[in-house]
């Protein structure tokens, strides 16, 4: 297709009569367009697309994990800023990667749209006139027969099943495989559609992360999130007003054998409302079973333990009674770290750094560790601090800023129900139990279904492109001087040669055999519309032109 547009454009170039050197701005534009929409450029852009993706897999990416990028910055303080300047931590949203795929996008559009138009016209076209010299085709066969020319041509039509045929004088011209071009156009258009859908989804959607402790609820508003990643044009003040409540969570693990400790399943039972007025619904969230609520998907990403603490101040009043989510270090032991911050004690603020062991065991060295992810024997150890938590500045809930605080020492190893009396009568802290929490992700991406549709159409178009072989066949039958008929059959395939030639050869032998089986030929062909009944080898074709 690029060749057809090229031809016409080259023509106009000459007609415009621009000088030998100076093409003029319009000429340059045409020239650039022609280069951009050529196959060769498409090929190079495809390579660039592949090569450009490589750093995106080798270096940590912000889209995948901000933490990994941060730790890369820490490990390579000199190199990282330079890489960052080249957008190498954001390859897939970088200007240079965007340049590659936008050029490909334009090239694709410039390629495929004219091609779609051309194909729309070609689709109704009749098979081309029979060329004069069939012997020049990639495949050409000839033989003579006693059958009359009319019989030969009728038989040829019967042999050319699935071809669109047209009679031209002493010959039949046949063509098949129009679908290939349609499939190819469909495939490329679907790719364009896919890109558009992805872009739209990225601009209007959002993704958010949150933790939810058993028994707690969540309302879909901006402040409820731990982190949220909105698209450029997402209105984060107007999120879907759904609410969610975590009723129960249960993780099961393989108990024995060498896979012991590997997770078997996670199940979270939630109740939700699409909006405050809507009816309550129930859903069982599992790893591959997200909840779809008000156009937003809610996913279960992970889980953890939230030990519960009760803190009393020096006067013995309860000033804190909460479950505090801890972060696990690994999934085999679920040894988890967390921080308890108690600002309102009536006196000095209190802070604790804690370690939670779900299945505590003592090693031979006397060290206490967790040997299983499930809570078989939960223990907590704490380090206490007293002073100023520094909460006026924003800070992470998982870190304690101890600069303005005095250490209070370490707690003993605590079982559920144990209380640690803080030194100097500063109060007490009780490990009163634990709850489990889940980490959830919400995602609104309007592109999901359009993208899936486009991708499926692309596969369909692809299969058609790759498996339909367009080809043309001509059969000519001429009387020779001695009263016999000379038959010529020629074939031209647009794709691979050998397979087509084998098929053309089959057509020839098929035709020759049919003509041989009825010496003197089959009955003279009836009118075009008389054919009826099932096709026997001698049946005439059903109409002058047959369609695929």
């Amino acid at each position, binding site marked *: 297709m690029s060749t057809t547009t090229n031809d016409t454009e080259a023509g106009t170039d000459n007609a415009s009569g621009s000088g030998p050197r100076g093409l003029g701005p319009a000429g340059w534009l045409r020239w650039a367009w022609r280069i951009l929409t050529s*196959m060769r450029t*498409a*090929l190079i852009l*495809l390579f660039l*697309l*592949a090569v450009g*993706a*490589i750093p*995106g*897999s080798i270096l940590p990416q912000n*889209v*995948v994990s901000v933490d990994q990028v941060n730790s890369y910055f820490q490990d390579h303080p000199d190199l990282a800023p330079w890489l960052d300047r080249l957008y190498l931590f954001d*390859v*897939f949203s970088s200007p240079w990667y965007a340049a590659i795929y936008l050029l490909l996008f334009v090239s694709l559009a410039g390629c495929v749209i004219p091609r779609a138009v051309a194909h729309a016209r070609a689709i109704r076209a009749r098979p081309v006139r029979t060329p004069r010299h069939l*012997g*020049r085709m*990639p*495949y*050409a*066969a*000839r*033989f*003579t027969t006693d059958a009359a020319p009319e019989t030969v041509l009728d038989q040829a039509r019967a042999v050319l099943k699935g071809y669109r045929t047209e009679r031209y004088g002493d010959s039949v011209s046949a063509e098949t495989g129009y679908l290939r071009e349609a499939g190819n156009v469909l495939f490329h258009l679907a790719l364009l559609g896919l890109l558009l859908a*992805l872009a739209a989804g990225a601009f209007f959607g959002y*993704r958010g992360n949150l933790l939810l402790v058993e028994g707690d609820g969540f309302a879909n508003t901006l402040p409820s999130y731990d982190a949220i990643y909105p698209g450029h044009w997402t209105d984060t003040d107007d999120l879907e007003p759904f609410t969610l409540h975590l009723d129960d969570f249960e993780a099961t693990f*393989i108990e024995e*054998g*060498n*896979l012991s400790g590997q*997770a*078997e*399943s996670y199940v979270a039972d939630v109740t939700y409302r699409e909006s405050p007025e809507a009816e309550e619904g129930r859903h069982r969230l*599992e*790893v*591959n*079973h*997200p909840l779809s609520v008000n156009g937003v998907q809610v*996913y279960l990403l992970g889980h953890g333990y939230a030990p519960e603490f009760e803190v009393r101040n020096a006067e013995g009043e309860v000033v804190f009674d909460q479950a505090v989510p801890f972060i696990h270090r690994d999934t085999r032991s679920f040894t988890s770290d967390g921080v308890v911050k108690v600002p309102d004690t009536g006196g000095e603020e209190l802070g604790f750094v804690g370690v939670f062991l779900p299945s505590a065991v003592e090693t031979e060295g006397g060290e206490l560790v967790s040997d299983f992810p499930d809570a078989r024997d939960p223990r907590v150890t704490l380090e206490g601090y007293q002073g100023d938590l520094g909460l006026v500045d924003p800070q992470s809930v998982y870190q304690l800023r101890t600069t303005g605080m005095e250490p209070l020492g370490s707690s003993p190893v605590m079982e559920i129900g144990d209380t640690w009396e803080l030194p100097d009568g500063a109060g007490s802290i009780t490990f009163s139990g634990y709850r489990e929490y889940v980490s959830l*992700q*919400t*995602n609104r*991406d309007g592109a*999901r279904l359009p*993208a*899936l549709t486009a*991708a499926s159409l*692309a596969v369909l178009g*692809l*299969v058609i492109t*790759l498996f339909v072989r367009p080809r043309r066949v001509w059969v000519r039958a001429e009387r020779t001087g001695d009263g016999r008929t000379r038959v010529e059959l020629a074939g031209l395939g647009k794709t*691979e*040669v*050998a*397979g087509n*030639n*084998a098929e053309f050869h089959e057509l*020839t*032998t098929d035709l*020759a055999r049919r003509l*041989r089986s009825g010496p003197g030929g089959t009955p003279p062909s009836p009118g075009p519309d008389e054919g009826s009944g099932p096709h026997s080898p001698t049946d005439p074709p059903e109409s002058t032109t047959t369609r695929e």
Partner: protein
Amino acid sequence: MTYTLAGTVDETMASASDSLIIAMIVTYAAALFLFAIEAAYGRRTKLKAGRLMPVGAGAAEDGADDAIEVNVRTAEGEARASQSVLGTIALGVTGLGFAMGVAQIVTRGLAAGRWPWGNMFEFVVALCLVAVGGLLYASLRYQARFLGAFVLVPVLILLGIGVRWLYVDPGPLIPALHSYWVPIHVTAAILAGGAFMVSGAAGVTYLVSHRAEARRALGERVTGVAGRLPSPELLDRISHRFILFAFPLWTFGIIAGSIWADEAWGRFWGWDPKEVWSFISWVIYAAYLHARATGGWRGPKATWINVVGFATILFNFFAVNYMFSGLHSYA
């Protein structure tokens, strides 16, 4: 929705499966040996015209009095390949190994009580099974058993790596793999990967044969396996054939994978290293198909793209699983 997990592993099945894999490797090695002898010492024999074989100019059909005279305008002569009776035996032996492979996968699945391609080891074994299946298909359908040695070498290497370094006992799966999209996605990847492997092997064979032809054109004598290979055109067609099969499947596999990712991780595409590399492979094979339709790129250049494409598949499998930390918990 989820797979029920057989808590216990069927030990008889597990050990049957482990014995079968060793027997299979030995069988393939024997077949490789026979194929290699055929390739090096067989007689160059004309192949029948067929689906991928060119119709020669002399393909006259002798009828009573209406002989067909055929005129074919292709540069390519008739297909010839080195053949000997050992090759027929090798094919039978390969078929035996293939049957063992099927039995091995079935017993392993029974042992673990789930679909049997749930970890790296199982994936490699299945990939090789598909490649050998592709070889058998090509041999029967396209008379292409001259690919035997070229396909069995990578198969044996991969199986060796699998048994030596990737082996794990059969057992249940982690929760992220409890989705019916996983078997669909992984099956597509395995089928496509196996076909890409056959295509890559045919591509390498093509490159060897292409060089041999170029040297012959310079008047050099080409001996050994290289001198007895079929024409590069034929090898190119076979290589292309397998990509025609594999590329749409790979595309479908990526789509199935993103549906699963959407269910499991809350996004259908997140540029995780594994995703990046399957995308790279996809783009490279698309480039291969384009190259075949671009002037000046057909032939060795396009074939090199094909070989690079298979290299990216292997890289995705080995390097990405071990070098980069991603969400794909397959390893």
